[in-house]
């Protein structure tokens, strides 16, 4: 089963680039949703056997990351966004380039860290790091509040990918807690986005620079 993880991770990396290059909000959210679903599959594969709590965990991940949260985001887009473009601060081509550089860096960096080869696919660490970097890239170069939420999700996905290495170490309860926290965070963010759109009649965070020195 573990042999399938590498190809899936490659898909995840590709999805990062899709997210970076997406000019429409829908595409962006869909990319994240797919990433979430793949993550759920990988949980099962990483563990290698079907136990109840593994299935539960994978199910919860798929449900939350692949279905509930993307639906919430779509809802928010319908609700508040007039223009459905991504509105990047740094252009798409440049973002893609930066993403490539980030992935290369992640590969290089993970080379410097000793990895237990016998344990798991060697792609996990670089994939995780590059996804985190992609998340950061979207967070810092996209001006809409919703895109920032998506960036945060991608970042979290990156962290989750790393978590695949440690299925035994992280108890089920904690995993669930993490997921719950994530969900509530996105939920609250959604509420705030809603309020922002009412308050400023825009969800661009460039409006949100009233508080400064």
């Amino acid at each position, binding site marked *: 089963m573990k042999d399938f993880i590498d190809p899936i991770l490659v898909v995840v990396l590709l999805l990062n680039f899709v997210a970076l290059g997406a000019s429409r909000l829908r595409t962006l959210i869909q990319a994240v949703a797919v990433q979430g679903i793949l993550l759920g599959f990988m949980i099962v594969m990483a563990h290698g056997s079907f136990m109840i709590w593994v299935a539960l965990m994978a199910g919860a991940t798929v449900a939350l990351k692949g279905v509930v949260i993307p639906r919430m985001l779509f809802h928010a887009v319908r609700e508040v966004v007039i223009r459905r473009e991504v509105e990047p601060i740094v252009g798409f081509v440049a973002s893609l380039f930066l993403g490539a550089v980030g992935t290369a860096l992640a590969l290089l960096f993970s080379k410097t860290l000793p990895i237990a080869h016998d344990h798991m696919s060697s792609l996990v660490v670089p994939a995780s790091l590059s996804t985190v970097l992609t998340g950061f890239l979207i967070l810092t170069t996209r001006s809409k509040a919703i895109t*920032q939420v998506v960036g*945060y999700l991608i*970042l979290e996905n990156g962290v989750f990918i790393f978590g695949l290495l440690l299925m035994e170490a992280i*108890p089920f*309860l904690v995993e669930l807690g993490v997921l719950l926290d994530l969900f509530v965070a996105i939920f609250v963010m959604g509420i705030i986005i809603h309020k922002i759109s009412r*308050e400023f009649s825009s969800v661009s965070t460039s409006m949100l620079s009233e*508080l400064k*020195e």
Partner: protein
Amino acid sequence: MVFLLIFVPLIIAVAALVVPSNRWRPWLIPLAGVIHLGMTVWTLSCAHPVAGLQGWLALDPLGKLVLGLISVIFTICGFYAPAYLALRPERQNRFFCACLLGMLGMMTLVVLSHHLGLMWVAIEATTLCTAPLLFFNHSARSLEATWKYLLIGSVGIALALLGSFFLAYSSLHAGLVPTLLLDDLVKMAPQLSRPWLHAAFVLLLVGYGTKMGLAPMHTWKPDAYGEAPGLVGALLAGGVTSCAFLSILRFYQICLAAPEAAFAREILVFIGLFSMAVAAVFMVRQRDFKRMLAYSSVEHMGILVLGIGLGGLAAFGALLHMITNGVTKGVLFLSAGNIHRAYGSKLTDDVRGAMRRLPVSGVTFLAGFLIVTGSPPGGPFISEFTILTGAINGGHYAVAALYLAVLAIVFIGMGTTVLRVVQGVPSPQAASTAYRDRPQLVIPILIFLGLSILLGLYIPNSLTTALHDAVAYLEVKP
């Protein structure tokens, strides 16, 4: 007992959601505070070790300090809350009360948890509980502050999660059973994989440092503290940051046990000084006195980290400083809140003569400023002085000199703003607002102030013992 400490506030939080009366609901907060304080005192005084869930929850010497601190701060703030909320009858306070209580429960969980994953969950939960508190004013500015707080805080904490995973992986890599249990990690620390440990420590420091408000991850702080009610500011600056500090200490402990002390200390000293310096830079010519308090908080977080990084006597000073600073911040934030209410502004352009307009809050604001900048005989004086002595004792003369220089700049920057606020003659429109200093609004401040001065004049033996225990616990010899 352990579970009670965590669940009682949560149960009361649920009760707060249910209670219909906007007027009576706030009284649940002091109620929870008193119960929590009572249980805390009982827990601290009982001799046998407190633990639960097979080592997932335990109260160690460090935890005792933080638990006592947050319980005291919350209780005092709790008594301030009903009077404060009575000033804002137009606001629905259902979520406010519930979140406040939830925050207490989660902070307690942070303190007690010895499982790093659980701790992460609890800290993220405090972030989420705080968001509605910041949004209490429902203004565009508070919205913006909440958004920034939530996003920056969540991103930071996500990094901390990655760091926790790195740490677990470092044990895995060393061929050990991967775990996130603190006690196990400390035990097996010498065998952990060094590169992973380094990377983990950096990630955790950045992650929880965001929560704690260390520069340059502090950017949410002025916005959040500036827009939140003074009460929330006091709890954030005294309680939540202490919890984040505690979580950094947990990982620092592992680093010391590894033994990777030199690396960790170097980074902590650097971040500490950097935070102090950044705070000093932004305190100069600061016109908004609540933002100024936020930078002061950044500065003091820097002092804490610096003291821990210096180690030994300075670490003792830093732990003491966590307590003294927390208590003094209570004075400052609550006074600032009162002044803000009375003037309807928090800019020094509008706020003048607070000592005339508010005879108690104005004076306590000034006193809080003097104490927090290290003037004897306040508590922070003793702790800051101890850290300085520790620095000189360790031969870190350059650090000591920088430390003093930054303290001087901070004093100048902060003093300019504070004196502008408290001295002079208030404008006529400021005097015409309805707000007056009422006993309920000032007695909590006076209690904070009394505690703060008391800690400067006399530190009880039990506290000294507790601090020594905590330092000994923290700085385990490999």
